[in-house]
């Protein structure tokens, strides 16, 4: 049994409800027990100045610390921003400043011990690839997936930690029976941070990555970041139009891909909620002998 303090982030509770639904079902099957933090704030997503996001994230880290649990995220951006704050808060002087100026008023203190882990890392490091493989009910044979990490699960090196974390999606895809279809932009920006600021830049990035996956023969792309999903899925039609081409590349959330391989129902995993149709993916799935219920 792996236990975590769970930080679902804003988007899985907002525009990507299918991420929250699918990760809950998959966690059940993988024996991951979580206690959701419901009274903590948005990480700031790299938009807000660290002068206010560091106190907000220190508060989140302190609450997980009180529970004696590592903090699990399901969004690359939440992971990167809270992870970077946790790293800065390793500095005793800075931590003392944040504790005194911000957390003390609420009676909180952060001691600097909370580990921050993305679900992707939990799958490989805590659940384990062998355990995951043993639970596969419907191998994703004959299906090609292009990994798309989200910047914050690739860089900066000191926040991401172990270098091998940069290839976990590929490893998981193989364990689930799928084929990895590599793309050169798998660690690049999807475009989302620029969407409301410089839309042509954002759309050009989206067209480039989804177009490359299509050109390389992928059936779908898979991402551990809901912001990448919002961009690559939600903006793909506009991006393809701007690039004057057809793409139609389904984008799966990481727990959706895992859930399909574990035998879960595609509809229950929210595959019908996407902007780009996932019907072709669903049609390729082998039937599972006995329906597996996550509940």
């Amino acid at each position, binding site marked *: 049994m792996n236990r975590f303090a769970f930080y679902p982030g*804003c*988007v899985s*509770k*907002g*525009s*990507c*409800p*299918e991420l929250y639904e699918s990760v809950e079902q998959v966690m059940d099957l993988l024996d991951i027990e979580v206690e959701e933090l*419901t*009274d*903590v*704030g*948005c990480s*700031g*997503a*790299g*938009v*807000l*100045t*660290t*002068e*206010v996001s560091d*106190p*907000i994230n220190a*508060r989140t880290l302190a609450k997980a610390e009180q529970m004696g649990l590592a903090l699990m995220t399901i969004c690359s951006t939440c992971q990167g921003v809270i992870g970077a704050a946790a790293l800065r808060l390793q500095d005793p002087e800075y931590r003392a400043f944040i504790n005194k*100026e*911000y957390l003390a*008023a*609420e009676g909180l203190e952060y001691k600097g011990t909370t580990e921050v882990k993305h679900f992707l890392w939990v799958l490989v490091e805590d659940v384990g690839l062998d355990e995951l493989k043993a639970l596969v009910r419907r191998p994703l044979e004959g299906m090609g997936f292009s990994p798309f990490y989200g*910047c*914050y699960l*690739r*860089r*900066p*090196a000191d926040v991401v930690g172990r270098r091998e974390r940069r290839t976990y999606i590929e490893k998981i895809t193989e364990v689930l029976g799928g084929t990895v279809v590599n793309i050169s932009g798998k660690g*690049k*920006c999807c*475009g*989302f*941070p*620029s969407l*409301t*600021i*410089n839309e*042509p*830049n954002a759309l*050009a*990035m989206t067209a*480039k990555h989804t177009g490359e996956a299509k050109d390389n023969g992928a059936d779908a792309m898979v991402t551990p970041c809901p912001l990448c999903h919002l961009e690559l899925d*939600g903006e793909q039609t506009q991006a393809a139009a701007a690039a004057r081409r057809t793409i139609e590349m389904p984008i799966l959330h990481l727990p959706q891909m895992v859930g399909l391989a574990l035998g879960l129902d595609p509809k229950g995993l929210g595959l*019908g*909620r*996407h*902007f780009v149709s996932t019907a072709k993916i669903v049609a390729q799935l082998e039937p599972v002998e006995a329906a597996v219920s996550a509940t």
Partner: protein
Amino acid sequence: MELTLNVRRGGTRRSADDSHQAYHVDVEPETSVFEALVKVREEQDGTLAFRGNCGVGFCGDCTMLVNGRQEVVCLMPVGKAQKDDEIKIDPIPYAPTVKDVMYDAKRFIWDKVNSFSPGVVFNGVEQVTEEELSPVRRAMRCTMCGICDQGCTVIDVNLDFKGPAALNKVFRYVFDPRDGRAKERVVEAGETNGVWDCVHCWEASDHCPFDIDPTHRIMELRDRSVRLGVKSGTGNRQAARHYNAFERSVEHHGWLDERNVAIQSYGGLIRGGLKMMPTGLAALRRGKANLLPHRKRPGASAIKALFARYREVTRTER
């Protein structure tokens, strides 16, 4: 060691099948790629064009692609660069090529640097500590080699983006305790293709060979800009609208109201609402959005208190 340098030849027009000319040289393994090219130019072919100046990694001029990877070639020994005794040399892709492997430095970096106000404008502070100057010194290590551009996801789709090197130059002045024009500088840096167009993908930091960590410098420049009350340039108000809508949402609800942030960023209820209408309706149909009002998180009042405290703590510099 005997080596073959396969150097791209040709004029301004680039193509996937650019022709390469083979030059054979006999040099020591520790000879730099730059020195090997100079030897070719002096002894074999005076028409070969490339950039390069100091030869010791100080000027950043001799940047080019070595076996597909961007390098400052005076710091790259041929022994390390070679693959099977061959080295393929191409011009950098992020600037127009002038001839062979010579790039247009004006378009590559100088036009961008020159779009920002130059020089420290003295503010009367005569004595500064080494500690205060240390981030400035770090930024000043930049040689404008532009290797950061190789990773930059924005440059990749838009060559007009100012890029990490030019923005690092702005950082150098804004964080100099002797400079009195910080606010004007962050406004300049905040225009379209400037600091708010950075997608903080951290690629620049991954690529910089001089440990300047340019993405961090850009993010610190944004933090300082916000502290100075500047959240965009004068010509791209949507950057400030996005910041303010995001901040309001987290401050008052504890978490993000994505619908409202998008609508406000695109210009408010009417303009933003119209722009978001097709996406919103599609999201409603798919159950990705609802029409319920955005609810406060249970910890919203505590988050709001953190914002109030943040304003008090940072008030002195506003």
